[in-house]
């Protein structure tokens, strides 16, 4: 008899666990009549909160207190959830299944995929409200006459410099290399520059050098938008640029190395091993903590080259199309977050230049680094959001990695250009 008991317990786990399932109907099961005011609203908390926000670990520290205050003011429960992996893809899937969050934070390059999947809904803020924000930031989340997210911070690559190793900001890449290598010779540091390449390459971090050496991803049309019919990879300009990168690589001056990757690039600088670091605002907190004396300047160009153009990314709040709590979501984004106080709080917890002009001015006055980070965006181009970029970033990164490793720049760029062309055409 005993085994029967055990077997039954096991097999009926599905049912018995459900025994305690609440009998009250979920929010979608309500009859179409207006909800009757009921006193039992303060009953046991629902499994899902009245407002659910998905975000990254870093941003969660800033969003959580603001969201909690919002919850108290409106007497609702709020959940800020850190998504471990692949926030964008998980959000698209969950939203399609009706199980997604109400709000999420992601950079502007989420827009293309989000529109393709109908994942987000437009921000219903008028021009009056949006006028308070940096124009390029608003433009980065605008498409088809709508604004799709509330931007809060910008990020772009800059040059961090260990002022002990290199007291003066370099005017050119060549100067960066020579001063960096001089510091290595003196023994102040172990390497001139820390720039993540890795085995798979990093097209994002290489872009400033690539553009300064004359390369481009796509041509720009008259209105300053990407013209994806004119691909820059594989052109003679891109090959010339790749040669300049190769000269910095493992078979050249060894300033660039595949051993430096996303997992150790910042740590190399904070440990005092590197004279220079190319990174974004996310590195700032660690650098400050490390006590390495530093300064921030825009990334210098090659001597006689074009300006070094990093990508401009804009972090933003997005409202989801299948949100369970659209009214609270809208209220939170368009009212609570759309204030100088909330934007300042975002900066304080997750320091990066705010995109609300009044907040940026106030913050830069107190924190010189913010102004310097923002100055690095002067030559920046917008981070492209085309869904097909998923087929462009990896081959381009791989091309940079093999070129840094010593492969022939000409054939590498030509072949990669063909690969990218077919990826762009496929859509």
């Amino acid at each position, binding site marked *: 008899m*005993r085994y029967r008991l055990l077997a039954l317990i096991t097999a009926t786990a599905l049912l018995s666990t459900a025994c305690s399932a609440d009998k009250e109907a979920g929010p979608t099961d309500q009859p179409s009549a207006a909800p009757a005011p009921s006193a039992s609203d303060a009953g046991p908390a629902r*499994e899902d909160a009245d407002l659910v926000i998905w975000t990254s*670990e*870093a941003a969660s*520290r800033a969003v959580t207190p603001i969201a909690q205050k919002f919850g108290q003011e409106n007497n609702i429960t709020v959940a800020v959830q850190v998504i*471990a992996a692949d926030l964008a893809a998980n959000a698209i899937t969950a939203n399609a299944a009706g199980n997604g969050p109400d709000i999420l934070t992601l950079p502007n390059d989420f827009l293309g995929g989000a529109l393709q999947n109908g994942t987000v809904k437009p921000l219903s803020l008028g021009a009056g409200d949006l006028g308070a924000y940096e124009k390029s930031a608003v433009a980065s989340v605008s498409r088809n006459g709508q604004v799709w997210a509330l931007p809060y911070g910008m990020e772009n690559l800059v040059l961090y410099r260990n002022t002990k190793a290199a007291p003066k900001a370099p005017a050119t890449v060549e100067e960066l290399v020579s001063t960096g290598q001089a510091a290595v010779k003196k023994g102040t540091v172990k390497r001139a520059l820390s720039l993540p390449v890795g085995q798979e390459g990093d097209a994002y971090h290489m872009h400033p050098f690539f553009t300064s050496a004359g390369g481009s991803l796509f041509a720009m049309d008259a209105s300053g938008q990407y013209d994806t019919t004119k691909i820059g990879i594989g052109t003679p300009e891109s090959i010339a640029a790749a040669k300049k990168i190769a000269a910095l690589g493992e078979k050249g001056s060894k300033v660039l190395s595949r051993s430096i990757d996303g997992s150790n690039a910042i740590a190399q600088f904070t440990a005092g091993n590197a004279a220079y670091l190319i990174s974004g605002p996310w590195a700032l907190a*660690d650098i400050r903590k490390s006590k390495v004396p530093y300064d921030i300047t825009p990334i210098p160009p090659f001597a006689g080259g074009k300006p070094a153009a990093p990508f401009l990314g804009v972090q933003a709040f997005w409202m989801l199309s299948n949100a369970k709590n659209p009214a609270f979501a809208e209220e939170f984004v368009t009212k609570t977050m759309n204030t100088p106080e909330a934007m300042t709080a975002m900066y304080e917890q997750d320091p990066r230049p705010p995109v609300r002009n009044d907040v940026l001015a106030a913050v830069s006055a107190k924190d010189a680094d913010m102004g310097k980070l923002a100055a690095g965006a002067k030559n920046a181009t917008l981070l492209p959001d085309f869904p097909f970029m998923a087929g462009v970033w990896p081959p381009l990164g791989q091309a940079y990695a093999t070129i840094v490793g010593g492969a022939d720049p000409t054939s590498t760029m030509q072949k990669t250009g063909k690969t990218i062309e077919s990826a762009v055409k496929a859509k």
Partner: protein
Amino acid sequence: MTVRWWREVGWRHAGGLVAVVFAVVPVLYVVSAAFNPLGTVVSTDVIPTRFSLVHFQSLFSDPARPFPRWLLNTLIVCAMVTFVQVLCSALAAYAFSRFRFKGRRGGLLTLLLIQMFPQFLAVIALFTMVTELGEALPALGLNTIAGYSLVLMGGALAQVWLIKGYFDTIPRQLDEAAVVDGASHAGVFFRILLPLARPILAVTGLLAFVGVIGEFLLASIFLTDTNAKTLAVGLYGIIESDRSNNLGVFAAGALMTALPVVLLFQYLQRYIVGGLTSGAVKD
């Protein structure tokens, strides 16, 4: 140390020590990172040079990362799934080992085959399914430990082959004798086979436990609520957010994750070794 000792025992120690070094060096690195107050990739080496509990403190004090809660969730999931998996597998293994029925061979092969489906490619279907289940019975939906455990229990028969292989080595005469003495098939299973099969139950229990504790893929999709997370997802979030600087906290968390497995093994080892004597009741 005689030559004979070397031939019979000594070489075993030599081989064992080589394996120990191989096994331990990476673990030592994790230990070293966990106790290194700097906790960065660059500052960590195999031999711990500094000692500090700062990462463990931050594990247990940071409200944004409710580590104790994750640990508890993980232990609940592991316990439930391991118990169900070992029990169901042992029951089925008994049937496959002792009964002759139609579809027996096919059933065994099917079991093996089903496990070969690349499960993470079925993840969208699973997600849709749990979404639907959650709408009907919120206690079993997304972001619930119960729902997540149920999905993992889909592998309830994962250990059948191992246990059946062990049952096959237990002489049938034993159960036949018991039947003659008036025992039911259930009696044979619970009173004779299960006690004799303790070593393999301990091994499969451990295998199941480790399989669940390290499960990351499904958990990262099903458990997004901070308080519903397991250690695997929670820790991945820590390292993913900042690979170079969170190494210390991550390593500390990794050690805490390994701890239950090590303890469980210490507990189960006597059954595995105990098999040396009790398993010797042979024909």
